[in-house]
C-alpha cells in the first residue's frame, strides 16, 4: 500500500516515514501543500496523511481540492490544532479521519490501516444527483443554485434516497432508516405521504421528476436529478 505523507516538520515526516515503512507501507513525503496536492493527484496513492498548517497551501485546501476533483483517496488529517471546529471543519471538507498532535505513532498506523480497508469508494461530503445537492454538514439542500427548505424528516428521507441514488428503495427500508420509531408505525403509507411532501418541494416547483415510484418495489432517486 502506497501512502503519501504531507508534513512540513521534516524530522517528524522522516520519523513517520520510517515507522510506516517498517509497518509495511510504501511512503512518499511532501513538505508543502502545493507539492502535496500535486503528488496526491498524480501518484495514485492508497492513502494520504495530511498536516493542516502547511506552507503554500493549507491541508484543508488540499483536501477540498482533491474531493472537488472526485479524488476519493482516504485522507487522514494531522494537526496540532485541537479545537472542536478545527476537527469538524476538516472532516466536513471531505477528510476521513483526524488525529491531533502529539499522536501515538501506533494509533496513526492503525487508523491508516482502517482507512485503507474502506478503500477509495466515492463518499462525497456533499451528495449530488444532477443539479440536486445536499450537504449533511450544513443541512442545506439546493436545486441548481436555489436553496430548498426541507423539514428534518424530509431532509433525512432525501439524504437516504440520495445515498442510494439510482437504486430502488422499499418503503419498509425507508421507514426503518428514516423514522425514529419504525416499529410503532403500522401504516407504510406515512412514507408515501412524506415522499409526496418531498416531491412538492424538490420536484414540482422545478418541473422535474427526481423521485420516481417503482410500482410494487418502492422509490428511486434518478441519478440525473430528474
Amino acid at each position, binding site marked *: 500500500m502506497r501512502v503519501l505523507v504531507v508534513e*512540513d*516538520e*521534516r*524530522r*517528524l515526516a*522522516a*520519523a*513517520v516515514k*520510517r*515507522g510506516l515503512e*517498517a509497518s509495511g507501507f510504501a511512503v512518499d513525503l511532501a*513538505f*508543502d501543500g502545493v507539492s502535496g496536492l500535486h503528488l496526491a493527484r498524480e501518484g495514485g496513492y492508497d492513502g494520504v496523511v495530511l498536516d493542516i*498548517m502547511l*506552507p*503554500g*497551501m493549507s491541508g484543508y485546501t488540499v483536501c477540498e481540492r482533491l474531493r472537488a476533483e472526485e479524488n476519493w483517496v482516504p485522507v487522514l488529517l494531522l494537526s*496540532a*490544532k*485541537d*479545537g472542536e471546529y478545527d476537527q469538524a471543519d476538516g472532516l466536513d471538507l471531505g477528510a476521513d479521519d483526524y488525529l*491531533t*498532535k*502529539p*499522536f*501515538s*505513532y*501506533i494509533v496513526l498506523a492503525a487508523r491508516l490501516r482502517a482507512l485503507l480497508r474502506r478503500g477509495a469508494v466515492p463518499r462525497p461530503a456533499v451528495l449530488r444527483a444532477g443539479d440536486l445537492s445536499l450537504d449533511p454538514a450544513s443541512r442545506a439542500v439546493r436545486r441548481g443554485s436555489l436553496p430548498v427548505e426541507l423539514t428534518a424528516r424530509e431532509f433525512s428521507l432525501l439524504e437516504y434516497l440520495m445515498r442510494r441514488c439510482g437504486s430502488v428503495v422499499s418503503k419498509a427500508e425507508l421507514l426503518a432508516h428514516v423514522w425514529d420509531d419504525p416499529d410503532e408505525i403500522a401504516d407504510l403509507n406515512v412514507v408515501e405521504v412524506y415522499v409526496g411532501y418531498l416531491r412538492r418541494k424538490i420536484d414540482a416547483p422545478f418541473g422535474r421528476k427526481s423521485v420516481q415510484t417503482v410500482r410494487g418495489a418502492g422509490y428511486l432517486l434518478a441519478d440525473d436529478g430528474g
Partner: protein
Amino acid sequence: MASTSRGPGPTALRRWWLRHGLGPLLVRWWRRLGLRARVTLIATLGLLVALIVGDLLLLNTLRVSLTRSVDASAKSGASEVAALINADRLPVPVPVAAGITIQVLNSAGRVSDVSPDADWMVPLVSPARARALANHDGTMLVHGAPFDMPSLLRVAVVKADGGHLVIAAVPFSEASGSLNVVARGLVIGTPVLFLVFAGAIWAVTGLTLRPIGALRRGAAKVTATGQVSDLPVPEARDEVRLLAVTLNDMLSRLAAAQQRQRALVSDTAHELRSPIASIRTQLEVALDFPAGQDWETTARDVHADVLRLARLAEDLLLLARLDEQAGHEAPPRGTAVDLIALCRSAACRYADTRVPVRCAPAAGAQLPGTADAVADLPGAPGARADVPALVTGDWERLDRLLVNLVDNAVRYAKSAVTISVRRDGGWAELSVTDDGPGIAAADLERAFDRFARLDDARSREGEEAGGAGLGLAIVRATAQACGGTAHLEAASPPPGLRAVVRLPGTGKRDREMPSGRPGPA
C-alpha cells in the same frame, strides 16, 4: 475661653443625637433609601418649602395692597370733609360716601360733627392719637365692636381749619373676607398641588432611572451567560447614554482582549505540540523498530527539536515577564547601555553568516571587515566615534532585541544587513536594514503579533528556519518596557525591510528637567 467652653456644647449634643435617639436610625434609613426615593424626597421637601413661602408671600402682598386701597378711601373721605370745614360749609349730618364713617373733633377734642351712623360721644381714636396720626399722615386699625360698628376698621385722620380733626373710618371686613377666601383656597390647593408635583417627580425620576435599570439587566445578562453583548443605549443624549456607550466600549475591548487571549493560548498550544509530536514520533519509531536504527541521527534530530522547544519556552517566559512589567507601568529599570557597543558586539557574532552584517555607526568603522560602513550620526554634529549612545535598559534584553532583528534580517537579506544607531534629539534610534524582498505594507504592523506568520511559503527548512513568530513580539515588548517604540518600514532605497527601534536616551531625562531646578550640572 468662652468660645472654647461653648464649642463642645453643640458637638456634644450632636454626638448624643448620633449615638442615641432617632439620629442613627434616621441616618441609616436615609442611607438605605433608593436613589429614586431620595431624589423624590429631597425634591418634594424643597417643593413643600417653596409652596409654603409662596403662599405666605401671596397672602402678604394681597393684604398689603387691600389695606392700601382701604386706607386710600378713608383718607379721601376725610380730606373731602376737611375741605368742607375749611370752606365753613359743613352740613349736619356730615355727608359721606357709602361705607365711610366720619367724626369731626373740635380743638377741645370733643366730637363736634358726625356722619349719620357715627357715635356722637366717643371718638374712634383718642384726640392725642388722632393728632399724632394726622401729623404722620398715618392710618391705624381699630376694633369697631365697642362702637357698635363692624369688627375691623381702618382709620385715617386729616387736619382741618380751626383745630378740627376729621376722623374717617372704613370697614376692613370686606378686604379681610377676600383675604380669607384666598387663604382657604391656598390651604386646600397647596397640598393638592404638592401631591400632584410629588407624584410627577416620582414618575419622572422613575423614567430617568429606567435606562439605568436596563443597563443593569444587560450587565446581569452578560454576567449570567458569559456572552458579551452590547448593553442597551438609551435614546436620550444624556449622561446615562454616555455611561452606556463607555461601558459598551469597555466590554468590546474586554471581549477583544479575551479573544486575543484565546487565540494566543491556542497558538501557544499549537507551537508547543509540534515539536513534542516530532520528538515523540521519532522516539517511538526508533524504539519500536530498532533494526537499522541510526541512533546518532535520531539523537541529533531530537536534540534540535528540544532546542526549538526550549527556545519557545524561553520566549514565552520572556514575553510573559515583559507583559507583567508593562502592566505595572514602572519606569524603565536597568543600567545605562551603550547601543553602539551593543551593536558592535552583536555584529561580531555574525561574522560567518550567509550575508555580511555591517555596523553603520561611525564607531563601527573600526570593526574588521566593515571598512565601508557609513558614518551615520546626523543628529550629533561633530560627534566623535567614541561618543556612546546611552539608553537605560538591560544589556541582555537589548541584546536579545537586536539579535531577533538581525536574525530576521539575515534570513531574508539578499546581499547585506546593515545595523545603524543614530541620535535624534533625546532619542536613540536603532535600525536594522536588509535588502531582501521586504513585506507588504498591510502586514508591517501584523508582523508584531505573537505567532504571526506572514509568509505562507516559509517552511521550516533545516536549522535556519523561522522561529515560532515571537521574535518581533519580543522586540516590541522589550522596546516598550524601556519606554520606546518599534516599527517596520520599507527600506530606502528599496527593496528591503528596515526595522526601527526608538529608545529614550539616558541623557534625555536630565535635559528635560526644569531649567530653574538646582541640581548637578
